[in-house]
């Protein structure tokens, strides 16, 4: 099971938990709290708006480019600082970065996701936030996305990578 896990991690980046410490379940509530803040930003900045996504891809507005660009900038500076000063987690663990390996999936899957993104006006994060705002029909879109992930898992060995 363990070697299988490692293999899975190598050939498919999952947003991995690099922590080796076992915590009680309620420690996970801090991620819920961060998620709440994230969801509020999504709504308040209208990033989960279908209209904003159309504008972005039709090059009618700088807004989303500004959001993503400045997010990457702050993210990159933070990562640089974490590495430079060897900043540890609040539990004193060393922070681990997981290198991603290239495969054809990033091109084919990337194109597929891009097409779906402009149709639904949402990447996976905004799907959850849209449901939260009361757009209940998006639950169906989310189920369809879960089904898409499942079908990918089913066909994985037959797809070019």
């Amino acid at each position, binding site marked *: 099971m363990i070697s299988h896990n490692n293999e899975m991690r190598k050939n498919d980046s999952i*947003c991995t938990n690099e922590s080796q410490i076992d915590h009680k379940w309620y420690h996970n509530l801090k*991620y819920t709290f961060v998620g709440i803040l994230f969801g509020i*930003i999504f709504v308040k900045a209208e990033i989960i708006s279908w209209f904003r996504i159309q504008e972005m891809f039709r090059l009618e507005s700088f807004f989303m480019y*500004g959001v993503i660009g400045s997010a990457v900038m702050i993210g990159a500076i933070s990562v640089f600082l974490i590495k430079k000063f060897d900043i540890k987690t609040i539990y004193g663990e060393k922070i681990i970065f997981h290198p991603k390996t290239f495969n054809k999936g990033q091109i084919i899957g990337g194109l*597929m996701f891009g097409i779906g*993104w402009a149709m639904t006006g949402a990447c*996976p994060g905004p799907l959850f936030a849209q449901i939260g705002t009361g757009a209940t029909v998006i639950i169906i879109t989310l189920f*369809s*996305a879960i089904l898409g992930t*499942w079908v990918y898992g089913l066909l994985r060995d037959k797809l070019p990578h």
Partner: protein
Amino acid sequence: MFTSPLPWYIAGPLIGLMVPILLIIGNKSFGISSSLRHICASCFPANISFFKYDWKKEIWNLFFVAGIILGGFIAAMYMSNPNPIEISESMQKTFAQYGITDFSGLVPNQIFNWNELLTFKGLSMMILGGFLVGFGTRYAGGCTSGHSIMGLSTLQWPSLIATICFMIGGFISAWFIVPFILN
């Protein structure tokens, strides 16, 4: 102020801060599409090797997305913008061609609703669109958060390729596919 929309130069950096926050509070790499995989692994693994892993170790990701749903709810309940979204005149014309004249929601209520679900428009936009999001993100190994934000922040070139492909797919979709479906 509380109800007005956030400008990009506030929202973007706050989203960027998710990267160090998740790393520092528990060594977690920022990413959301994996939650879809964990849902498959926990609910319907069906003996597929891709879903046979210790999903409980990744359960933080499900707590995180639960928070996103709650955050969406809180923002919509208590902080919602009373005015319709600001859209340029040229985009309004484009949307009018799609039959969208109601800009009050975050998703266009005239298309994304339960009655439209089983029409050609609804099936394509919601069900096919959702399927492509789920299939594509997993095939690509990440989404906007995992690749475009976390991946680019850590200077990974596969993530740059993925991001470029997300954008190309989005351009094709917004210029050709969405107009085809909605016209």
